[in-house]
């Protein structure tokens, strides 16, 4: 009876005031559509093209119900601020990356184009273009899927482009698949401080780093096309971060070629030290397998295995690569025009570099040498050099390069990564 009375009052209010009523009682009045001007957002639905698109989209992202789908129409839409999503289980779906384009070239605020901070989100079938900072960032966003998304900066690769294209961080269960990233001034696809990661079947090109797995564990990077970056695929661990101890990454079945774009990263960033023309770099990580990839035409080296070379004070940090295996890859031309410090070192061994390079560093900070187990499991015909640097800081005059492979043993199979939200 109370409810009935309430409904009657509600309806009379609507009649008297012309519709500016209280949407929360609309189930009782049975008149939902007329009282709520943002119903498309509340239940998901399609954001129509037209005036105030960015405002209506952001409103829908805020008012979305968990588990709903927000559909973006075909068209190019000008964005002036970063978008944010903080509702679990939402799917944001465009028509296709070539048809639905969120254009941030006039962005005035925020550090990225789209920021996701909720779990179980799927992003698919749209393009994020020309953001001022990062393209799409997801932070603390578990079980996220990026599928058939494009993030790009138009024009020639430039220092003025944003840092990361697709940027999941501090997350568990990350899937990035079938996506395309172009022009990032740091890494195109960057997964940081995360666990349980699959990056597959993407295209990364004209970035400083194509794909980077950093301070993360249990990652598979499989079936990607990584070309025309300065460096192709990076597996790094860095000091002084909340999550360290990067380990257990499989780099398999990727096409890694022509990564000879100049390094256009701003100088302070770690990727600024990546020599242009490097296929894979493994730095300060444990248990990394590089197998069954196809390398071609990387001017400095196809595979570089290196310690972290800068000063650090973090006592919990291990700067060495250890338990690394390289096997069964195919190697096209490389090392014909080595860049950076490696160019300087190349002169010691005749000017050109072999496809696989290890810096030979086995200790740091005055510690004893450790057995790092670098296993070059390739036919003898595949060239290798141990630069014999011993420790950092690097002293080129003290380098004692050697073509002898270190006595390593297989690290065994990297366990399959099973995501809880996708096959």
């Amino acid at each position: 009876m109370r409810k009935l009375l309430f409904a009657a009052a509600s309806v009379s209010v609507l009649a008297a005031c012309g519709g500016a009523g209280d949407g929360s009682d609309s189930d009782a009045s049975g008149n939902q559509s007329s009282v709520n001007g943002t119903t498309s957002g509340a239940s998901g639905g399609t954001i129509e093209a037209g005036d105030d698109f960015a405002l209506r989209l952001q409103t829908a992202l805020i008012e979305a119900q968990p588990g709903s789908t927000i559909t973006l129409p075909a068209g190019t839409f000008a964005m002036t601020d970063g978008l944010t999503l903080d509702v679990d289980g939402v799917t944001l779906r465009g028509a296709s990356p070539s048809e639905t384009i969120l254009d941030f070239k006039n962005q005035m605020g925020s550090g990225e184009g789209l920021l996701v901070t909720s779990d179980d989100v799927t992003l698919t079938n749209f393009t994020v273009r020309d953001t001022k900072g990062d393209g799409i960032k997801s932070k603390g966003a578990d079980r996220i899927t990026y599928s058939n998304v494009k993030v790009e900066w138009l024009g020639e690769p430039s220092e003025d482009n944003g840092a990361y294209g697709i940027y999941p961080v501090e997350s568990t269960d990350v899937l990035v698949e079938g996506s395309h990233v172009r022009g990032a001034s740091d890494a195109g696809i960057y997964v940081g401080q995360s666990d349980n990661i699959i990056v597959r079947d993407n295209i990364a090109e004209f970035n400083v780093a194509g794909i980077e797995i950093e301070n993360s564990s249990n990652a598979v990077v499989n079936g990607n096309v990584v070309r025309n970056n300065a460096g192709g695929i990076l597996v790094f661990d860095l000091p002084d971060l909340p999550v360290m101890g990067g380990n257990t990454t499989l780099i398999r079945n990727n096409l890694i070629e022509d990564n000879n774009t100049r390094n256009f990263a701003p100088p302070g960033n770690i990727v600024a030290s990546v020599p242009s023309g490097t296929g894979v770099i493994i730095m300060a990580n444990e248990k990394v397998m590089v197998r069954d990839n196809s390398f071609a035409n990387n001017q400095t080296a196809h595979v570089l295995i290196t310690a972290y070379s800068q000063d650090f004070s973090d006592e919990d940090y291990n700067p060495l690569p250890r338990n690394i295996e390289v096997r069964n890859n195919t190697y096209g031309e490389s090392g014909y025009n080595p860049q950076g410090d490696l160019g300087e070192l190349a002169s010691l061994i005749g000017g050109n570099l072999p496809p696989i390079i290890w810096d030979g560093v086995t200790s740091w900070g005055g510690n004893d040498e450790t057995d790092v187990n670098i296993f070059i499991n390739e036919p003898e015909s595949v060239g290798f050099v141990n630069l014999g640097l011993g420790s950092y800081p690097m002293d080129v005059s003290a380098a004692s390069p050697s073509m002898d492979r270190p006595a390593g043993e297989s690290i065994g199979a990297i366990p399959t990564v099973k995501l809880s939200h996708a096959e």
Partner: protein
Amino acid sequence: MRRALAACLALLLPACGQQQVPTGPDMEAILAAGPAETLADYGLFTDASAREPAANVIPYELINPLFSDHASKHRLVYVPDGQAASYRGGEQVLDFPVGTVLIKTFAFAPDMRTPDEGERYRETRLLIHKAEGWAAYPYVWNEDETEARYAPAGAWLDLAFTDPSGMPVEIDYRVPNQNQCKTCHQLGDAIAPIGPKARNLSHEGPLGVGQIEDWTARGMLTVAPDSVEAVADMHDASLPLNARARAYLDINCAHCHRAEGSASNSGLWLGWEEQEAVRIGFGKHPTAAGRGSGSGTVVIEPGAPEASIMVYRMDSAEAGVAMPELGRALIDDAGVELVRAWIEDMPSEN
């Protein structure tokens, strides 16, 4: 049944009301699952333009506020009648009870050297302590300042004024969207206030009395110590540079740059309590700064502010470079100068 009828009638008034404003804070609106459509619906003010606070809605000021494009900020707090915040010291904010509303109105005058003359209210942000935690809601004022309406997606406002140094400025002022409110107010998985820490309240406020003592006397605050040590006033040039700069970073940066904040993954933590040199930025290389690093390689280079990424990002107004990345379109010149002087004053390591 009569109660039900009364409730219906009560509902009618605010729903229709052009000028009908409730006579006091409306706990039903305050504790509702979602936001009210207008600021007036909460009954926190007795007039439509929110100049006259309702009973027990108390104005206060922080010793160090966040820089927000030179906006004047009018802060008020409402603690539900008969309840009180519990004192917490150090880096924690006071423990406000459910039903508390923190109100912050952003205002601009044509000439911010005389901020009271011709002041216009632009936006009001509410932090409401709901039963399930804090919620953040932005409200934007109309041109006549007769109504502030809920704006979940925020707004861009074209503002022109003379800044405190006498320079005319025109800006696209950003009213943050509701998620952006949460970005700064994030504490782990929850939302939390930033400013009202005891040490940041421990001074004479707009009512002309010591705020901690006044709130205690009003019964809004319980078991505060007899004297609460105040944070260094960052604009008080008589105080040590280090204390002023760290106080500045604490209120302008540490809400994101801490272990539970939005910038946790940077490993750069700028709270007042932080003692670890590398976390404050000494010898700290950028993690995800991109072009935000400028030409610097470390966050703080002692003796060399021009080589310190911290100064570079504070001294920019460009999206993708500027820090904080939300909440300002202008550079806080005074803040930049303070941090620059602090770094300049450090003994160089070279």
